[in-house]
């Protein structure tokens, strides 16, 4: 079980690498500045919903920080904060571990909107963006939602199965 989990986390890291290297080549040139899917974030939402929201929080903080440090443009901490917070909140919402597909997809939609809005909010708080929120919404937040929704559909079956194997072996009282 430990091993399975560390392999999953290693795969998350691989996803992070793919996000920065291979993904830009797959997106059409006209959309390159407008579609910036956060694939790792979507996978971490699955962790916080199906496994444990605290795992989601820690993973969100770590991978957010990684993103911040590697692509250090203006400040460190925007992604780390947004990803940690959003993953925790989304893990808080569902009542049981057995979240069905439609509910999970709604969570992904809410999560995508929440993450991009939090990041936009942070940047405008520090005066790095002066465009209105409606611009950001039309420019990249809505296109992102669609791509991330598709990605969540693709990884839903395999990732949920793996996460259920991990949680099943754990004793029942530890589940919450």
């Amino acid at each position, binding site marked *: 079980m430990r091993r399975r989990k560390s392999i999953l986390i290693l795969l998350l890291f691989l996803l992070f690498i793919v996000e920065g*290297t291979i993904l830009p080549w797959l997106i059409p040139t006209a959309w390159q500045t407008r579609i910036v899917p956060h694939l790792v974030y979507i996978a971490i939402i699955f962790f916080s919903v199906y496994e444990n929201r605290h795992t989601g929080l820690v993973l969100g903080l770590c991978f957010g920080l990684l993103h911040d440090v590697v692509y250090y443009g203006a*400040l460190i*901490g925007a992604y780390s*904060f947004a990803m940690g917070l959003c993953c925790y909140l989304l893990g808080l919402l569902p009542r049981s571990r057995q979240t069905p597909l439609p509910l999970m997809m709604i969570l992904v939609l809410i999560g995508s909107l929440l993450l991009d809005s939090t990041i936009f909010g942070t940047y405008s708080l520090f005066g790095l963006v002066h465009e209105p929120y409606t611009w950001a919404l039309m420019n990249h937040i809505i296109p992102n939602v669609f791509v991330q929704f598709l990605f969540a559909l693709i990884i839903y079956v395999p990732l949920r199965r793996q996460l259920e194997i991990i949680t099943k072996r754990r004793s029942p009282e530890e589940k919450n």
Partner: protein
Amino acid sequence: MLKLFKLLGNKRLFVLLIGLILFIAVMGFTLGSRTNLSWPEKFVKDTVGFVQNVFYKPAGYIAGFFEDISNLHALQEENEQLKIALAHYTRDKAHYNWIEQENVWLKDELNFTLEQKEMYNYTWKIAQVISVNDDPLNRTVVVNIGAREGVKEGQAVHSAEGLVGVVSHVSNFTSTVKLLTAMDALDPNSNGIAVTAEGKANEVFGVIESYDKASGTFLMSRIEDPKALAVHDTIVSSGIGGVFPRGMIIGEVTDIQVGEYGLTYTATIKPAASFTDWKELFIVFTPEAEKE
């Protein structure tokens, strides 16, 4: 009041507030211009950079292959244009060599110091892009040369077409390039670039301070006299101030209008660099930076 204390007694809320304060502190601390990265940051950047290096280039080759196939029909036209450009180049080269020799001779005659002679002798080092962050609010690109090769913060980064950005942070083997699209006149940490029009260096002066995210153009402001400037002029950095190298191609004028307060003029500049499909970039080393 009792309710408030009860609320504060909630451990989760307490942790959340502490976290919020901590993050705002970290963001505020890292926001200003930092001269050096700490070693954990360098370590993480280098390790991730090494892995990214393995992925980015093959992906680029495969994508480039498909792009080449789709561009096959445009090949003949491109070939024709290149032939014309080559003819221009050979003609200009003879002229250029003559002027350069004369220039060297004149500098000798006028007793220029060595430093003055070498001032505009830039070295262009090639760098491979290893990953891209297209986040529209904070676009950055990571390249595969760093402090070991002598890269420093603030150096200009140029693509084959034009200026793309400035080195923002350097670790030992990689460096992060902050793109010009993040330029902002209201941000105290973003410096403007003094520019002029190509071939009209003595008549045109302006400053590029901001990038309009909605229309994808630069705004060249503080133009005192717009008479010399014309639409379709190529805008290059002028090197006034001595920090930023001169002759970096920025873009083409598409529109000239009266500025905000009616005292100066502003021009809209269409960027020369495409800011997409990153492969090779050049980092421009100024002679002063090399000596240190």
